[in-house]
């Protein structure tokens, strides 16, 4: 079973023979099972060399780096062995044809809205007004003729959706407006941190398939980010991230004391990150019986299955129907 490992301390990540070791600042040695590792998340400041990267490459381990503030900086991706020119050409064709592109963009958003409503309907008496507004707004998606128009609708829906958190959250976390880079209140800090974890989880699943992470549909393919991850993350942010946020706050796993406040900027502190990641990891490995596979599938694996469905759509096998949690 492949796992993810998170490194918060500063130190040195080292290859010794064919094993991976982490030495912290006090020279405490810890071995990491490279065979069973899928992703390494580095939040501390670490030294490493190319022989380590070679080892990671051999075992197909991705190394994700986060900066001091916990923002995603980049990934070391082992050489891509999953090459299918055919798939990439077909994926591109679905971007170039506006109608095909709109089909994809709408599908991602339909799933996103389905999962948003699913979250807030659980608190029905408190969120009824928001559910109604979002449902009204979502109806406009069908008739949208441009991606920009869709993005506008999505923005408004998300605004209402986050507003409803004020009615759901049991602690004193207030949502006024979405602020990023930097987040200006604790809730925004949680959302940003959770979303960046989601983004890397999606990226690492995409890399296990033949999809090209730069060709996206809802988000404009860009040079700075793997925008297909952003597209797919739309589906999984409300399904996984927001659920973890709500449960962290309502179960008092994370409280105000888990944040650092630095001139107008609010960030999760180390203890806060650890607590969040623990919940996040548990959620990702939670399983659900899959209706078609007749197997138990983890939340993480649902991301992979979504990638497979995209490939099937692109190669003309099975039209893409986005995930809509049924459980």
């Amino acid at each position, binding site marked *: 079973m492949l796992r993810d490992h998170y490194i918060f301390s500063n130190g040195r990540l080292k290859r010794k023979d064919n094993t991976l070791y982490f030495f912290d600042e006090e020279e405490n040695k810890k071995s990491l099972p490279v065979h069973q590792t899928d992703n390494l998340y580095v939040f501390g400041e670490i030294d490493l060399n190319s022989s380590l990267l070679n080892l990671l490459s051999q075992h197909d381990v991705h190394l994700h780096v986060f900066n001091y503030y916990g923002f995603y900086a980049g990934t070391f991706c082992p050489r891509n062995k999953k090459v299918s020119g055919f798939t990439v050409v077909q994926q591109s064709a679905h971007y170039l044809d506006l109608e095909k592109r709109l089909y994809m963009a709408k599908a991602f958003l339909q799933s996103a809205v389905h999962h948003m409503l699913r979250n807030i309907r659980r608190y029905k008496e408190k969120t009824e007004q928001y559910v109604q507004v979002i449902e009204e707004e979502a109806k406009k998606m069908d008739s949208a003729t441009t991606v920009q128009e869709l993005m506008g609708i999505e923005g408004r829906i998300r605004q209402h959706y986050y507003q409803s958190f004020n009615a759901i959250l049991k602690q004193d976390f207030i949502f006024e407006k979405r602020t990023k880079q930097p987040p200006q209140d604790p809730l925004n800090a949680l959302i940003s941190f959770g979303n960046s974890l989601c983004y890397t989880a999606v990226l690492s699943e995409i890399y296990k398939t033949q999809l090209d992470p730069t060709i996206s549909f809802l988000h404009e393919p860009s040079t700075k980010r793997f925008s297909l991850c952003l597209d797919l993350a739309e589906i999984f942010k409300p399904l996984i991230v927001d659920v973890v946020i709500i449960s962290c706050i309502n179960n008092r796993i994370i409280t105000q004391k888990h944040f650092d406040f630095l001139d107008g900027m609010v960030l999760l502190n180390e203890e806060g990150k650890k607590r969040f990641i623990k919940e996040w990891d548990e959620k990702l490995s939670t399983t659900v019986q899959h209706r078609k*596979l007749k197997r138990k599938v983890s939340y993480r694996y649902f991301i*992979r299955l979504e990638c497979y469905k995209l490939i099937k759509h692109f190669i003309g*096998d099975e039209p893409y129907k986005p995930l809509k949690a049924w459980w």
Partner: protein
Amino acid sequence: MVSGVQMQYYKVCKRKLWLFSKGIAMEDEHERVIEGKILHERAYPRLEDREILVDDAFKLDALDGEYIREVKLSSKMSEADRFQMLYYLYELKKRGVQKKGLISYTKERKTEEIELTEKDEVAIEKAIKEIYAIVHSASPPKLKKLPYCTKCAYYEFCFALEGDD
């Protein structure tokens, strides 16, 4: 040029053949595939002629006198394995080399001897033609549930479908 694996997949599942041929490979994480790879690496330590690449197109496991050898984990797909071997023998014959084949199912302590007959040659030629036709079609053959689907590396890919709401 068709590869041995393609010939084997042709007999197992045409959809798998198409996907594999388009570079949509699912094998590298699959446990059974890793097991098979290790088996191949460790097979025939005493033979010198191993892993022989013929014309940059297909790879023979090992050469042992008048025999071409191949190891397999199980005999569940023995008909497909036989076709793969017949294909090698056919291609070698075209190049003026007459051999016979041995397929070893080591776990089951069973070995099968394969000889290329004229009838087999016709079947192989027909298969090659059909493989080209399948590989050149624009989309994969439709999903068809086979009894051994759940054991396949493509199972999750093929059955990643949404149910009705």
